[in-house]
């Protein structure tokens, strides 16, 4: 049976994040021939309608209040609630991102909805929408359904392929006015310190270059930033490296920390503790560089180099640079 699916777009610094298009692809599948409506918030919302439509949204609802340019729980809550009431969807998807994780459980509790978070796969089976999600950070997986009522799920970035855009589509945009009550805002964002390295978000990066205790110091990480820079990737770290103070906890990959599934994961000087493997072993291709040929990381690696990473990594950076130069 076809369903009406609502997708809340995830916007960062005025740009749509990839996970918005991935959520639309999931929505197309779940809709089973039904309509896909995308909602987008912020003063630039109408400018974002075109790509949303090209990637598959049949209708775009724009809430253009400038109060929505910066995420805070209470304003987004009010706007999202209004959009849900207005659209009356059967299914709701958002990205499993900083915003989705903060907002969706609260809205779900308010509306009495079930919520399946962090989904990596969506399929329709016997008329039911079945979600696959990792547990124990990917050591195992579950298939889940929402038993009754509105079906609500958050989609993990980088897992569901987005559809090919149809450049000939023009958006069907509807502007929705939401009376936000500024007095009701209980949390106030004073300022934001941007920290992301080179703008590539760890959870959405297609290449992750990651360092462990073998990097030996904060300084040692420099060669990883160079390699990541050439590949347009992000830098991550093991718990050992974070605990040793070589880098910020925001970079930690593992069962505590972030779970990543890039196309290419390069593990440098990481032995491969179970808790780290949980955070990266579902990456498409894994490369391990380690002095110790017995390191457990080699058991999950597709390609391994046994050697001194301080020698290997700069060589790799040079080889990649040449290859990419030759291609362009």
């Amino acid at each position: 049976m076809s369903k009406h699916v609502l997708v809340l777009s995830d916007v960062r610094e005025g740009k749509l994040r990839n996970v918005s298009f991935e959520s639309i692809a999931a929505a197309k599948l779940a809709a089973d021939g039904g309509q896909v409506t995308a909602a987008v918030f912020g003063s630039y919302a109408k400018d974002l309608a075109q790509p949303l439509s090209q990637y598959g949204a049949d209708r775009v609802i724009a809430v253009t209040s400038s109060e929505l340019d910066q995420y805070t729980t209470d304003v987004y809550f009010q706007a999202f609630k209004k959009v849900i009431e207005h659209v009356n969807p059967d299914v709701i998807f958002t990205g499993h991102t900083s915003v989705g994780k903060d907002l969706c459980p609260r809205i779900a509790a308010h509306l009495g909805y079930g919520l399946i978070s962090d989904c990596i796969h969506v399929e329709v089976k016997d008329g039911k929408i079945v979600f696959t999600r990792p547990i124990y950070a990917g050591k195992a997986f579950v298939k889940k359904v929402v038993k009754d009522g509105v079906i609500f799920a958050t989609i993990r970035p980088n897992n569901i392929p987005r559809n090919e855009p149809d450049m000939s589509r023009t958006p069907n945009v509807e502007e929705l006015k939401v009376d936000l009550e500024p007095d009701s805002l209980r949390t106030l964002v004073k300022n934001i310190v941007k920290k992301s390295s080179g703008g590539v978000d760890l959870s959405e990066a297609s290449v992750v270059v990651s360092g462990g205790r073998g990097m030996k110091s904060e300084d040692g990480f420099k060669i990883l930033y160079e390699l990541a820079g050439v590949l347009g990737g992000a830098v991550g770290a093991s718990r050992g490296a974070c605990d040793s103070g070589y880098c910020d906890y925001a970079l930690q990959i593992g069962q505590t920390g972030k779970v990543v599934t890039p196309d290419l994961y390069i593990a440098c000087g990481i032995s491969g503790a179970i808790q780290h493997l949980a955070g990266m072993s579902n990456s498409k291709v894994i490369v391990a560089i380690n002095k110790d040929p017995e390191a457990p990381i080699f058991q999950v690696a597709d390609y391994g180099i046994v050697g001194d990473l301080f020698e290997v990594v700069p060589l790799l950076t040079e080889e990649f640079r040449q290859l990419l130069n030759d291609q362009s």
Partner: protein
Amino acid sequence: MDILVCLKQTFDTEEQITIENGQISEDGVEFVINPYDEYAVEEAIRLKQEHGGEVTVLTIGPERAEQAVRTAMAMGADKGVILDTEDLDEEMDEHSVAHLLAAMIEEEDLEYDIILCGYMAVDDGAAQVGPRLAELLDIPHISTITKLEIKDEKVIVEKDAEGDVEHIESKLPILVTAQQGLNDPRYPSLPGIMKAKKKPISRLDLDDLDLDEEDIQAKTETLEIFLPPKKQAGKILQGDIKDQARKLVRLLHSEAKVI
């Protein structure tokens, strides 16, 4: 200051997962306080040391969950409330757990200025219960905090937003969820462990709580639990390091096609 901490006992993160009869096997598994909840416990104790007051730890789980509460008490928490799940046959989800926690707070007449939770549990990784509980209690929440300061009624936090740090202000009462980096949890001391044995724990059954059937029944259902396919052993490259580097880049380009 009245401080509540919601915690869950989870598998140690070094445990492998095995499945028996369609369920995750707990045989021989070592249990710990969910690492994110441990940050919440530590922060609660620091708040108590600075502002005075009492730290109450709430958990929902089978008999073994008491160990987690005792550990939190050995770290410095004062009281515990445990909802026994032995007689719960049906699957619970985040919807049910949030309602159960809210009902436990009500049943025990617990006052709170601040409630601390881990931002997610390392087992099911849903990251839902904290914000859901805040909504049911009608108080604000801030998730994934890495720094917390309370001055009078004012709450000043740093929140991790995927690498960016947001400086946020709010007021008590509030619920916050702990992100890694918030603090370095202490190890329980020996005198702490001795004292913890005598601290009061209140045990509740489902029958003690004022809840509708609708609130406890899970909204979602698990159809299947499975393990990821085993990875084939990979290629270890050979030869001169320089050749290995060249070979690897070529393989990533032409064989794996990721570059």
